[in-house]
Each structure stands twice: as C-alpha cells, then as structure tokens.
C-alpha cells in the first residue's frame, strides 16, 4: 500500500512569490492535514480538509490556504512568501487511529 506522497521534495522561492505544495493521501483516506515544522519548533497545525471541505485551520494568516480535490488529494498555497515561511511542510492523512505522514516538502524562501 502506497503511503502519503508529497511534491515537490524541495522548493526554493523568493520573497513575495507564491508557493504551491501538493499531497496525495493513502488510498481510502478522506482527511488530509497540513503541518508546518519551522527550524527549532515542533509541528504546527495548519489546515484540515475532509471530504473536500476545510474543517479547521491553525493560527496562520490567510495567505496560507488550500483545497482538497474530489480524489482527496490536496494542495497548500502560500501567497506573498516571507522569509519566516521557510520550513518543512508535512501532509498527513487519517487512518482509524492515527495520522500517517508524508515525507514533507522543504520550502526555502530567499
């Protein structure tokens, strides 16, 4: 069974640009979560999508947004990039008891 996949692995952008990160959940999973792990910090919850709808969002500005497609894959968009957006962005899909994480996208903002 394939795990959670994310693309790209690495992404380099400059300040003010937009970044788009993609995630495919485990087959059969309908919920997708996005987390940010900035340097020296734990994982911070960003967004939760289930059945195509946003269910919850963390304490992040509106320039962090996303969507979930009919096939349950998801996209995270970060507009007007700032230097502090540099982080590892992790996507997870939910199984019966736990969330399964993808390998992450390392976003670097220069």
């Amino acid at each position: 069974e394939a795990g959670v996949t994310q693309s790209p692995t690495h992404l380099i952008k400059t300040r003010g640009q937009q970044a788009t990160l993609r995630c495919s959940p485990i087959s059969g999973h309908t919920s997708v979560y996005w987390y940010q792990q900035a340097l020296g910090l734990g994982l911070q919850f960003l967004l939760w999508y289930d059945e195509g709808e946003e269910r919850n969002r963390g304490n992040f500005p509106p320039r962090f947004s996303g969507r979930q497609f009919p096939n349950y894959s998801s996209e995270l968009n970060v507009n007007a990039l700032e230097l502090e957006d540099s982080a590892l962005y992790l996507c997870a899909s939910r199984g019966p008891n736990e969330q399964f994480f993808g390998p992450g996208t390392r976003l670097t903002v220069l």
Partner: protein
Amino acid sequence: DQQVKQNSPSLSVQEGRISILNCDYTNSMFDYFLWYKKYPAEGPTFLISISSIKDKNEDGRFTVFLNKSAKHLSLHIVPSQPGDSAVYFCAASAQYFGNEKLTFGTGTRLTIIP
C-alpha cells in the same frame, strides 16, 4: 501558548537500557495521545497511542503511560536499540470534541549509545 510540552530537548541512553521520554500537556480537553518518531528528511512515523480512558498501552518494546491527574505521559522503550535514535514527538488531540488536529510538542532527540 505551548499546550504540549517536551521539556527535554535531548536524551542519551546506553544500548540495551530503558529510554524514558516525557511529555506534559495543559489542555484538559485532550483525550487522545500519540507518539511519533522522526528521522531527518522524513515525515514522522506513528509509534503508539493511548486514549484517555486507559493509563497504559503496550506494543512490543514501546509502552506509553498516561497520568491524567498530572497531565503527563511518558514513552518507555525497552530495550533501547541503535535504530531508536531519532527525534520523538508527543502529540495530543481532542477527538471527543470532534477536533482531530494534532497538537505537537517540540520533540526530544534520543541518542542510543552503542
């Protein structure tokens, strides 16, 4: 406001001995707790979980203990092996209230010394 705290950023343990990782939480609505292990450049891997209706859950070498009155949980690894060297994250959620997002601690880096 850090609702889940792992106060030890790092821990070194001799191979074969017991590793004990600790985690404290402040939100009394948390009712489900998980431990994840993370290697560099990889996503976290689920290890073990415990519901608030239990005080202990065991899976092979891994045991999680929950003390609700103290709002404290711990992960015991016995015996510790070199492959256990990783960063361990404690996480919590308030599933009964329909809030399935995970709130993570800042992690403890465990190093197993051969």
